[in-house]
């Protein structure tokens, strides 16, 4: 098979332009072709992950110009891991949603176009080696996310989308300003060359542009207090889209934030990581406290998702290899587990317009499989053994203990208790309350059952055999920590010039 990282972007774009024509040919193609493309990309991820190693990233030129003259895609053990995660998850979300009832033909066309572009944009953010190109992909990702938020026509959806649009546009402007400053001071847009030239940039310009990046990407990565868009967007978007916001969109946002803070600015000595750590702590504590008070299931999951993003920021804010490892592990788990929770919850609240937790009484008997899978996801996300969430939380706790940050460690543990309280409150309603006899339930379709069970198998398998994934995570963590290696692999000529 042809395995070239450029196909991650080229194929979904091709499909997105092709789908309107396919609709005129034979309508089911609108659902089938995107799935085939995503399946191809998922398989390609596995192939590429076997080729890539810590010392041999796959660097793809575009238009035949080497970096820094042209744009390039950099598939390393780190970026490749996230890109593979996104592409495989995207396939599962397609599998879940291709028969989703509310998606009729006309809408299905729009839905799959937007979903393909959301995926392509997110993978583009992760793989690109050029900072302006990253901006373009952030735009593609956010625009498709706005439109998907308002997918179910109605006032609430439009309001959520409009809110998201306003905050997102603000983020875009900040990002563009930050890029402008960097370009004005260094004369390049290539990330590796930027990283190399960064010591020449005066400190005040560095700080201003870092803060602009931090705010802009913090919005995408759901950092408090910039995450006002998230609860509305998560609760108004269709179920599978909420799952892809958690698993795909937020992952691309946090990746960009990490790439910028670790590789380009490398603020390890100037307090940049402490900023990440503190913001992560605040995000986690506030989100989890708010999550406890939610009565809407989707909103509760959204706040829990932000809490997890806070946890990831804490892990990367430690600035050590163990921290990076833990952060990547949580990213993986969050993508898989939160997707499962959102996908299962879409059936739990199918017929209730307000999606209230109090309407879930006795669903354990009405929808046994969905409730069981939701429960499994809840156990995994709070970090109970033997599920995969346990190992990621444990590795984070060990990493904080190694850094002698007892306060952070204690806070994470305390917040975990809060998490347990609000997830178990839902489980208690599912299993220990009498069902309302008049309630209508929607049985999950076979394809969504397959999706949810596959995700559950991943959670249990990684929980029982964490070595399935730890090798990949260690490679990824080492690659991110090796900044000089990144520069040297991408612009070897310029790198050796500076050494002489």
């Amino acid at each position: 098979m042809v395995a070239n990282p450029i196909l991650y972007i080229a194929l979904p774009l091709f499909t997105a332009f092709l789908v309107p024509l396919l609709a005129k040919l034979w309508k089911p193609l609108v659902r089938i072709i995107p799935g085939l493309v995503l399946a191809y990309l998922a398989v390609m991820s596995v192939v590429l992950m076997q080729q890539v190693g810590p010392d041999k990233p796959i660097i793809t030129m575009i238009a035949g110009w080497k970096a820094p003259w042209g744009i390039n895609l950099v598939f390393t053990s780190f970026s490749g891991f996230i890109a593979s995660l996104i592409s495989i998850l995207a396939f599962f979300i397609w599998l879940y949603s291709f028969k989703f009832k509310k998606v009729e033909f006309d809408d299905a066309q729009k839905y799959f176009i937007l979903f393909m572009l959301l995926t392509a944009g997110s993978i583009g953010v992760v793989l690109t080696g050029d900072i302006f190109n990253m901006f373009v992909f952030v735009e593609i990702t956010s625009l498709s996310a706005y439109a998907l938020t308002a997918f179910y026509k109605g006032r609430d959806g439009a309001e959520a989308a409009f809110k998201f649009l306003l905050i997102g546009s603000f983020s875009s402007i900040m990002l563009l300003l930050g890029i402008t400053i960097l370009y004005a001071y260094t004369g390049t847009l290539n990330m590796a060359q930027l990283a190399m030239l960064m010591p020449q940039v005066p400190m005040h310009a560095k700080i201003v542009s870092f803060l602009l990046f931090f705010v802009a990407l913090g919005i995408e990565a759901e950092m408090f207090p910039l995450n006002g868009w998230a609860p509305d967007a998560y609760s108004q978007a269709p179920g599978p889209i909420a799952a892809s916001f958690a698993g795909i969109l937020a992952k691309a946002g946090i990746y960009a934030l990490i790439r910028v803070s670790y590789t380009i600015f490398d603020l390890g000595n100037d307090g940049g990581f402490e900023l990440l750590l503190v913001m992560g702590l605040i995000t986690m504590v506030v989100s989890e406290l708010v999550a406890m008070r939610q009565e809407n299931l989707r909103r509760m999951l959204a706040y829990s998702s932000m809490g997890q993003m806070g946890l990831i920021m804490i892990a990367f804010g430690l600035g050590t290899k163990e921290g990076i490892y833990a952060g990547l592990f949580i990213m993986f788990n969050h993508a898989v587990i939160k997707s499962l929770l959102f996908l299962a919850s879409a059936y739990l609240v199918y017929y209730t317009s307000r999606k209230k937790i109090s309407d879930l009484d006795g669903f354990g008997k009405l929808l046994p499989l969905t409730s069981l899978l939701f429960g499994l996801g809840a156990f995994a996300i709070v970090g109970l053994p033997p599920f995969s969430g346990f190992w990621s939380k444990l590795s984070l706790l060990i990493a904080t203990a190694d850094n002698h940050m007892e306060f952070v460690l204690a806070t994470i543990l305390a917040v975990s208790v809060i998490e347990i309280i609000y997830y178990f409150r839902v489980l208690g309603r599912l299993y220990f309350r009498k069902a309302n006899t008049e309630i209508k339930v929607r049985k999950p379709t076979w394809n969504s059952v397959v999706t949810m069970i596959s995700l559950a198998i991943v959670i249990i398998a990684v929980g029982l055999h964490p070595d399935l994934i730890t090798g990949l995570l260690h490679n990824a963590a080492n690659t991110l920590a090796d900044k000089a290696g990144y520069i040297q692999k991408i612009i070897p000529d310029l790198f050796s010039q500076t050494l002489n």
Partner: protein
Amino acid sequence: MRKLVIISLLLVLGYYLLDTFAGAEFGKDRKVLSNYYLEKSPSELQVANAVTAIVVNFRGFDTLGEVTVLFLAATGMGTILLRRRSKHTGLNPQRTSPEASKIVQAAGKLLFPAIMILGAYVFIHGHLTPGGGFQGGAIIATGFLLLLISYRQFKVEHKYVTWIESLAGLTFVSIGLLGIVLGPHNSFLENFLNVGTLNELTSGGVIALVYIAVGFKVAAELTGILDTLVNIRETGDID
């Protein structure tokens, strides 16, 4: 009080931004990227307009992204925009506006073909003269805008808009993919055709073809967006 805090915060932010931008020497010759582009555009690509060479070739990937952004804007527009019915008449405000005068209508009809030709000229000659696909496409869309505002019953056929934008997008990506197969470095969006001679219409290889596709795509999308804005369909749920 709250306003005072906001204003002072904005002033602080403004000061630091001003300070940073004042410190950057804009226009300073860094001899890094610009000279390379200026040198390579005429010599290797045979493209007289260096801006086009940068937009379509050196940074063609960004352009593909921007075209996609426009495509998304056109696709997502209808989902986000809802229009309230007027409480008194129950009609859209736009429908109650009077018909444009005969002078506007006649002039619109007269100008329309000229605008089309100008737009096509701008994007076909994108690699030779200032302008290109985005500019040419925008010019063509203004032609349709003229018809939309002068004739209330004028409707853009969405069927054709969809065909044009899809085919143009497919052309762009296909040219890119052909670069992987046929290009000398096997990379996406790479030139694989004969670059010809500088300053001739057939110079620049795929650059001219890509810009023509971009021209069609931008024209179709902007026209679609204008039409959507003029005739926002009423969907349920409006109270």
